[in-house]
C-alpha cells in the first residue's frame, strides 16, 4: 500500500522562507558594502564581520543557554541586524563598539521581547542610538581610516555634510557660503560621499539594493518612497521660504542616513505596519520627524530617531489601519 501525505489545502507553497528573505536583504546590502570596503578598507570589513558574528553569537547564547529554546540563527535575521548595525556606525569605530551595539540590539531589543517577530523597535537602530548616547565622541568621529585602494586626502575628513552645515549655520553663515567653503557638489553626494557611516557612502549603491529588494518582492515600495517624498516636499517648501537657512530636497535626501534608513531600516518587517495605509502614515511620520530634527533639533541627523519614534506607533497603526476589505463597502446594482 502506497504511503501518501495528507494535509489540508493548499497543497502548494512558495519557495521563499524567512531565511531566503533575509539572505536577499544581505545581497541587497552587498553593493553598499563593496563601496565601503573600497573607501574604508579593512575597517569596513572588520566592522561588518564583528557586527554579524557578535549578533549571531549573542542570539545563539541567549537561545541555547538562557532561554533553552530552539536555536534559530540559521534564519539570518541576526546576521542582517549585525550587518545593518555596522553599516550605521562611523568607519573608524573600534571593534568593541560594534560588539556592545550587538549585545544591545540582539540581547535587549530583540530577545527580551521574545525573539524574531516580537520586538517593537528596530534592533540595529536602538543599538546605534544606544552607542550614540553612550559614546558621543566615538560616534561622531568621522576620520577616515586607511584603505588599500585609496590614497591621498579627501575633501571631507572632519565631519559629515550635515554636521558641517549645522555648525556653519550656528556660526551665523548662510547655506551658499557653507556650500562654497566646503565644495559640496551633488555629483559627489549621489555617487560617493566620504563623511558619514560605513553604509552611507554611495547613494547609488543603496538605490541598487532597493531595486533588488523590489524585484525580488522582498519589500513593497511604499515606505521608502513616502519617506523620500515627504522629506523632499517638506524641505522643498522650507528651502523656498528661506534658502539661506533651510537646506533643500536634494541635499537632505542624499546626505546622512536617509537612504539607508528609508530603504533598509524603516522597511524592517517586524517594526513596520502591515497594511498599506499604515505604511504610508508611518513613512510620512518618519519623513516629517527627520526634517524637524535636522532643522530644529540638537543633532544634525534625525533618521534613526524618526524611525524609532514611528516604530512606537506601529501597534496602533496596525489596529486602526485595516487593509481594504472585500466585503465592506457595498454598491448595490
Amino acid at each position, binding site marked *: 500500500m502506497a504511503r501518501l501525505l495528507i494535509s489540508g489545502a*493548499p*497543497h502548494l*507553497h512558495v519557495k521563499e522562507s524567512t531565511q531566503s528573505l533575509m539572505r536577499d536583504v544581505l545581497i541587497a546590502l552587498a553593493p553598499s558594502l563593496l563601496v565601503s570596503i573600497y573607501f574604508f578598507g579593512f575597517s569596513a570589513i572588520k566592522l561588518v564581520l564583528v557586527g554579524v558574528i557578535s549578533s549571531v553569537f549573542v542570539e545563539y547564547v541567549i537561545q541555547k543557554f538562557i532561554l533553552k529554546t530552539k536555536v534559530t540563527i540559521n*534564519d539570518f535575521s541576526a546576521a542582517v541586524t549585525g550587518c545593518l548595525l555596522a553599516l550605521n556606525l562611523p568607519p573608524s569605530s573600534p571593534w568593541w563598539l560594534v560588539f556592545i551595539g550587538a549585545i544591545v540590539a540582539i540581547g535587549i531589543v530583540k530577545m527580551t521581547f521574545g525573539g*524574531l*517577530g516580537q520586538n517593537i523597535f528596530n534592533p540595529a537602530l536602538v543599538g546605534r542610538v544606544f552607542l550614540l548616547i553612550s559614546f558621543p565622541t566615538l560616534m561622531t568621529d568621522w576620520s577616515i581610516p586607511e584603505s588599500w585602494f585609496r590614497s591621498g586626502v579627501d575633501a571631507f575628513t572632519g565631519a559629515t555634510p550635515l554636521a558641517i552645515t549645522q555648525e556653519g549655520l550656528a556660526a551665523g553663515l548662510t547655506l551658499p557660503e557653507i556650500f562654497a567653503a566646503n565644495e559640496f557638489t551633488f555629483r559627489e553626494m549621489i555617487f560617493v560621499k566620504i563623511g558619514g557611516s560605513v553604509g552611507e557612502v554611495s547613494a547609488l549603491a543603496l538605490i541598487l539594493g532597493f531595486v533588488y529588494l523590489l524585484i525580488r518582492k522582498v519589500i513593497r515600495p511604499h515606505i521608502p518612497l513616502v519617506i523620500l517624498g515627504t522629506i523632499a516636499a517638506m524641505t522643498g517648501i522650507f528651502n523656498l521660504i528661506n534658502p539661506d537657512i533651510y537646506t533643500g530636497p536634494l541635499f537632505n535626501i542624499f546626505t546622512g542616513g536617509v537612504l539607508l534608513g528609508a530603504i533598509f531600516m524603516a522597511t524592517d518587517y517586524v517594526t513596520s505596519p*502591515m497594511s498599506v495605509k499604515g505604511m504610508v502614515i508611518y513613512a510620512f511620520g518618519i519623513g516629517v520627524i527627520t526634517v524637524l530634527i535636522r532643522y530644529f533639533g540638537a543633532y544634525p541627523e534625525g533618521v534613526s530617531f524618526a524611525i524609532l519614534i514611528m516604530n512606537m506607533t506601529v501597534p496602533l497603526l496596525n489596529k486602526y489601519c485595516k487593509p*481594504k476589505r472585500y466585503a465592506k463597502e457595498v454598491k448595490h446594482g
Partner: protein
Amino acid sequence: MKLTFSIGGIHPKENKLSRDAHIETFPIPDVAYISMAQHLGSPAEPVVQKGDKVKAGQVIGKPTGFISGFVHSSVSGTVTAVESKGDLAGNPVMHVVIAVEGDEWCEEIDRSKDIVREIPFSSEEILEKIKNAGVVGLGGAAFPTHVKLNPPKDKKAEWLIINGTECEPYITSDDRIMRERPDEIVIGSVIMMKALKVEKCYIGIEDNKPEAITSMTKAASQYPQIKVVPLKKKYPQGGEKQLIEALTGYRVPSLALPIEVGAVVHNVGTALAVYEAVQKNKPLIDSIITVTGTCVPHHRNFIVRVGTPFSKMLDAIGGLPKDAAKLVCGGPMMGKAVANLEASTLKAVSSLLLLTEAETKRKEESNCIRCAKCTEACPMGLEPYLLNKLSRIGGLYDELEQEKVHDCIECGCCLYSCPAHIPLLDIIRVSKAEVLTIMRNRSLKK
C-alpha cells in the same frame, strides 16, 4: 487593460501540463461504486436494492431535503450491494455498488452528437429537468444547480456569470470542454439565462487559455446577450466573489449570496451538464477529469463514468508514480488530499493531481516575521496573521468576528504565501467554523 479582481491574489506556477491532451473516454469500470453524497447538502437516499437490474441514467438515489439531489446510475448492470463505504477521506458514506454488464442506457436519453439549439421549455420545465438530471455545480462545491437557479422571489437576478476561469494550477478539464464543446456550453448558458429570466450573461475566461477564449467567442457570436470576457490571470479568480467583482465591479456583502448584487455564478462544466440535461435528457453521470502532475509521465483528460475507483484511474497512467507523495482530488490550492485510493469519482471531481514531496511537503513552522505577505495575498482583504494570532490565544471569538474571519473563502493564498510556513488557513478554517456557529446560534435566538 484586461479585467481582474482588485484585492490580493497570487500567481502560483500554472503548470497546465495537460492542456493539449484531448478528452479521452475512460473505459467503463467492472464495478461502479456510486456515492449517495454527490452534492453539498443532505445525501440522497438509495431507491434500489441488491439484485436490481439498472440501466445507465436510471435513478438510484432520491433527494432527501431542499438542498439535495437525484443520483443516477452511470452504468448498466446489477446492484450487488447498497452499503457504507469510505469516501476519499475515508469517512463512511452510503454507496450503491453495481457490477457492470454491457452499456445499456435509458431510452429517453439522446446519445447523438447533434447540437440541439431550440429551447422549447419554460423556466419551470427547465428547472424541473435540471433537478431530475441531478445536476450539481462542477466548480468544486457541488451545490445542487436547480437550487442555485431558483433564487428567492424577492431577489432579482441581473447577470448570469459563467465561470471559465479555471484559475487553479494544473487542472485543464474546463479548458478542454471550452475548446472541444463550446456550442453546448453556450446553449447551456442560454438555458440557464432562460431559467433565471436574465438578459445579460458574461463568460469569464483567464487569458492563459487563448484557444478557449477564441472557441467560446466564436460559439457565443450568434447570441448577442452573451459576452465572453478575457480576464487577467490571477488566483483565485474563479472564486465567486472575485469573479463577480472582476466582471461587474460589484462586491458581494459579508455573509450574503451573489444574488444580493444581482449575480448568479455557474461553472462552464455545469453549463455543459445543463445542456445535456435539458436538450438531451441526459442525467449527470460522467465527469471530465484531468489526471496530471509533474511526476506523471503522461498528462491526460478523461471523460469518466461517476463511480469509477481512483485506483482504476491511476492504473491508466501506469500506476502511482514512485516519487508521488500526495494525491489531490481537485486543484492544488483548494482540492482535498486523498486518503483512500479505493474511493471513487464523484460528479464534481475535476482532477486527480499527483504531487511530489518537494512540491507539497510543508516545512517546519517558524516565528511570524510580520512581513504582511499574507495580508497582501488575501483576496478578501483580511489579515491572516492576525486571525492566526487571535485563534491561537483561544476564546477570542468576538475579536475574530470583528476581524471578519467569517469572510474567509479558504482559497489558501495566505498559507501559500507565508515564508515562515505558518499553517494559517488550517487555523483560520477552524476559527471560521466556530465563529459561524456562534453567529448562527445568535441569529436563531433573536
